[in-house]
């Protein structure tokens, strides 16, 4: 690399967490600066904008829990995606797997005679299996016929979308909703408890954190985790070392789909308490979870941070709309800028800047 004065930029064989965090924070700051210019162009002083955003998201005790609402599904689905990505299985289907989870949970809540105390555990369990099942078909296609999983998992999303749409307008349409496209409200035992005074359905949050820790343990401390990592880094070497690609891929995909399914259960049992239009059930969480997982850079525990960060972005968007009267698309612009800078800074992670004293 060409030296710049006393600085020397060179490829760094090692990646350090400190630098990853430093560069990411720098990228996000740059995004904030550019977003500030957009606010200013819209006629809102950037200083005021950021003050209002911070005040109304982090500075208000009643608003803080709202950050966790989108963070919970992002955490669950994101941890699952991290597992899949580590095995180099590009699961773009978290949205569909999440919706499969909502369908299973709704079925348990409304159409099975599950006794009250068992209701929520059974909903989560069937939600997990439904999500896993939704991920099974693409993984089988990949393993048996080598069909590109990016396409199949993505397509499965639209099937899930149509399935939910058909259920709520057709067979599952509730008699109590006067013909609108919703199911009936879940019975009380199917409602997740919320932290007092908020809508944070804490069991989902707890589940997310515990599963993130378990996933980290699985990846770093178990034989299966080792196999997943090896297969992700070099499938040929993995096969040579005796790793069964069928087994690891299937397992990873079942876990990934299952976790997205759990996120879906959390949404219907914690927020909506019924099944409704698929675009209202999940606000694109399955897609945003891809970014969340990607930003966590393969570390399941880091998903806790990245999911919360995106929760903050969602809730800043809400604040921008209400308190600053900006159009709703501003949230997308904001998200887009942050991603643009984060992905743009990706290259920087592989380089280091070194101080080289002048030598003649």
């Amino acid at each position, binding site marked *: 690399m060409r030296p710049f004065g006393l600085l020397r930029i060179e490829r760094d064989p090692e990646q350090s967490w400190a630098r990853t965090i430093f560069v990411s924070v720098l990228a996000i700051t740059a995004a904030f600066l550019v977003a500030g210019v957009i606010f200013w162009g819209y006629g809102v*002083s950037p*200083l*005021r904008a950021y*003050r209002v955003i911070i005040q*109304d998201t982090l500075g*208000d005790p*009643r*608003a803080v829990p*709202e950050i966790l*609402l989108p963070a919970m599904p992002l955490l669950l689905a994101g941890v699952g995606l991290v597992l899949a990505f580590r095995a180099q299985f590009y699961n773009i289907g978290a949205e569909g797997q999440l919706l499969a989870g909502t369908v299973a949970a709704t079925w348990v809540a409304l159409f099975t005679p599950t006794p009250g105390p068992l209701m929520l555990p059974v909903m989560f369990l069937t939600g997990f299996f439904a999500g896993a099942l939704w991920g099974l078909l693409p993984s089988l296609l990949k393993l048996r016929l080598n069909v590109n999983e990016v396409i199949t998992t993505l397509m499965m999303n639209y099937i899930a979308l149509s399935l939910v*749409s058909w259920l709520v*307008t*057709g067979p599952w*349409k509730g008699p109590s909703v*006067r*013909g*609108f*496209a*919703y199911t009936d*409200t879940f019975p009380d035992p199917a409602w997740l408890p919320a932290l007092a005074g908020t*809508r944070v359905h804490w069991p989902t949050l707890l589940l997310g954190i515990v599963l993130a820790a378990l996933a980290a343990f699985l990846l770093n401390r178990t034989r299966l985790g080792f196999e997943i990592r090896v297969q992700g880094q070099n499938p040929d070497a993995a096969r040579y070392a005796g790793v069964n690609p069928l087994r690891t891929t299937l397992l990873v995909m079942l876990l990934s789909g299952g976790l997205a399914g759990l996120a879906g259960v959390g*949404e219907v049992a914690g*927020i*909506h308490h019924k099944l*409704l*239009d698929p675009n*209202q*059930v999940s*606000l694109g969480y399955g897609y945003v979870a891809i970014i969340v997982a990607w930003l966590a850079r393969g570390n399941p525990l880091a998903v806790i941070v990245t999911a919360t960060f995106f929760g903050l972005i969602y809730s800043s968007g*809400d*604040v921008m*709309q*209400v*308190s600053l*009267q900006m*159009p*709703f*698309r501003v949230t997308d612009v904001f998200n887009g800028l942050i991603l643009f800078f984060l992905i743009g800074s990706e290259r920087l992670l592989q380089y280091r800047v070194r101080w080289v004293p002048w030598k003649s």
Partner: protein
Amino acid sequence: MRWIKLFVIVTAMLLVATTGWAQQSKLKIGFIYVGPIGDFGWTNAHDVGRKQLEKAFPGQLETFYVESVPEGNVEPFIDKMVRGGAKVVFTTSFGFMDGTIAAAKRYPDVIFAHASGFKRASNSATYMADFYQIYYLNGLMAGALSKTNRIAYVGAFPIPEVKRHLDAFALGARAVNPKLTIHVRWLFSWFDPAKAKEATEALLAEGADTYAFTEDSPTVIQVAAKKNRLSFSHYSPMQRFAPKHVISGQLVHWERIYIDFVGKVLKGTYTTQNLQNVDYWWLLAEKAVELGGQPGQAINPLFTGRLKAAKVKTSEFGTISVYDLVNRRLAQMSKNPVAFDPFTGPIRDRKGVLRVPAGKTMTVQELTTMEWAAPGIVGQWPGEPK
């Protein structure tokens, strides 16, 4: 020098920031929308209503809004509005119903009003401006102008509101031309121009020549006009998208309801204690809805001649032109109480089941829950009663 400049700029910005923050003591009114204000339908119409409301009470109130609010998220938005000082909150989508009622419990000193729902509380009213009378009038015109004896309806969702409009449209059309059939396609979306285009093309292929629809874009009008087919504008003034092909349509005036409601709040007639039974169901007579594809023009003059030439036999007026019939029905329905209602018995559904007995008119409760399909309707009908 540069530092001084920077200092001045920063101080100025801080000053602007702090003074802009000052609170005012006007009545603050929040609006929560389900779609973007830039759509061509529902949300845009509510936003037009909001602006008219501001104009009607200059200096007395201040309004603010959020658009594209997801149904599961209405509560946090209401929280933010109330924290921002809102004393009246309008929520404008059926999906906001439970959230609105929950918020009404949480904020007993804030007044709420929810569009299109049926749950109320002492501080939460409901309101709706409905089109079924106008769809009947549109149907009369479609019946006179269709040459293929096939007309079409592109519906958003198969829910009672849309079914009611479709049935009224079909009843009107068959009142003029009993041989006519009404072909239906569902979009399962309120706003989806791509699907609307597809549906319209399918209906064009089936030979339908006159189009009505429920979708928040002018797509159906544009696609039909390309094939030289006629259509009715929906919700906002869409005649301008095909001035030679739009016969008439439905226009809404939410401001009529907003101005009335807020006026009563300002006067103290409506309080947080007495809204349990306040339900606006406003139609032609209240001027909450209007016949036409652009304001002030009930029928596109290009079609006046053909509508005058089409004669129809009625038991009430004898043989008259469809043009006159539309105007007489319009006049009858613009009175309060109305002298005519499209859903007056005897009416059988398309399966032959008697739905409205002779001499009876459907109640608001029956209208808002109706699921049956009127005779002449062809196509899928999810949730059709047996």
